[in-house]
């Protein structure tokens, strides 16, 4: 039953891990540029969220440092995002590389769409987690309901950050997997039909033998 399934999943995992290893080696070179890009997109969002704008972003290598303006010409370090914060882009690309049944053109287009969507998720993660941290420390006023459910919001943001690469990949490759599952269904159906005709043939053989015996 479903003999091809473990082999297919095994091949998918193997290609994923190989692509991941290769891309992870490249990530140390790409990470500072990607981090600078995320910071550049996050800055206007902070300006939009804050009045007055008190957050200053500084990228050091692949780390993002968050400073807060605490006085005239005075800033204080508030928090930082380590060099692994945006690493999920690597497993996301590896997932697209390993997905079966996608042509290379479609794979590249969907991969690029996926990278774009994950970048948006990363920008939102940086902004939301900093603003929620401000609220938790009383540095930003929020409504009574938001204040009561602040822990839940922080966990939700963290959960979305972790789930984003897989959710994006599933959304963009759902069609390909649907085809794989349909193929498995057809294989199983064909196997069932073959089994039924064998049973039928054996039954007919048995009936003939019985008829021949005196």
């Amino acid at each position, binding site marked *: 039953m479903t003999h091809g*399934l473990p082999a297919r999943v095994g091949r998918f995992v193997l290609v994923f891990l190989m692509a991941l290893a290769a891309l992870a080696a490249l990530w140390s070179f790409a990470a500072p540029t990607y981090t600078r890009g995320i910071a550049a997109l996050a800055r206007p969002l902070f300006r939009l969220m804050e009045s007055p704008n008190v957050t200053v972003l500084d990228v050091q290598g692949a780390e993002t440092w968050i400073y807060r303006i605490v006085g005239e010409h005075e800033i204080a370090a508030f928090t930082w995002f380590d060099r692994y914060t945006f690493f999920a882009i690597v497993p996301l690309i590896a997932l697209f590389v390993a997905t079966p049944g996608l042509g290379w053109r479609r794979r590249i287009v969907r991969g690029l769409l996926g990278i774009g969507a994950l970048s948006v998720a990363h920008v939102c993660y940086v902004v939301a987690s900093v603003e929620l941290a401000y609220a938790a420390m009383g540095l930003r006023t929020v409504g009574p309901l938001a204040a009561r459910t602040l822990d839940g919001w922080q966990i939700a943001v963290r959960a979305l950050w972790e789930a984003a690469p897989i959710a994006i990949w599933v959304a963009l490759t759902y069609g390909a997997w649907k085809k794989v599952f349909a193929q498995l269904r057809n294989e199983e159906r064909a196997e069932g039909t073959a089994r039924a005709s064998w049973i039928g043939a054996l039954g007919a053989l048995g009936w003939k033998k019985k008829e021949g015996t005196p």
Partner: protein
Amino acid sequence: MGDPMSKRTERRPNEARRASALQWLLSIAVAAAIVGLLITLAVDERAIGSLQRGYASAANSVLRLLGHPTQIAGNVVGTGDFGITVVTACTGLFTTALYLVAVALFPTTWMRKLAGVGIGICGIAILNIIRLVSLYYVGVHWPAALDVVHQLVWQSLFIAFAIALWLLWAGRAAARRGAAR
């Protein structure tokens, strides 16, 4: 007046579509409930504390079985020289929730979904204990690599494992549906 037989055959696909839409809505509701439960569990200090201590205790038992004189103090496992702290992110809660949401949304029978839930929770929990034990080993014998193994290697392996587990379960469920037709 049309043929009553043809009317009956016309109604059937509509009913099937309605039943399928209802099941889809129910699946979405279950998936939303799982997400809600995860957030409630992660916010509740007693619940998440118990989960953290449970994992720390399991990892400690395995390490002691392997001959390490480790001790457990709350959610910290280790010796005087080195210890690992099991925090919320180390419980595999987010990966488990994502897997459960994927199981809930897959179109199959509720019994098969229940089996998928059991397989996923057990599989991810076992992998998490292996992860904690391996991190202790890396921390003791190869401390320079601890950060990379913790943040990059295991994060990726967890993704690969959860997806592979789901694909095996979903593929089998889809094939059985084919065999049943």
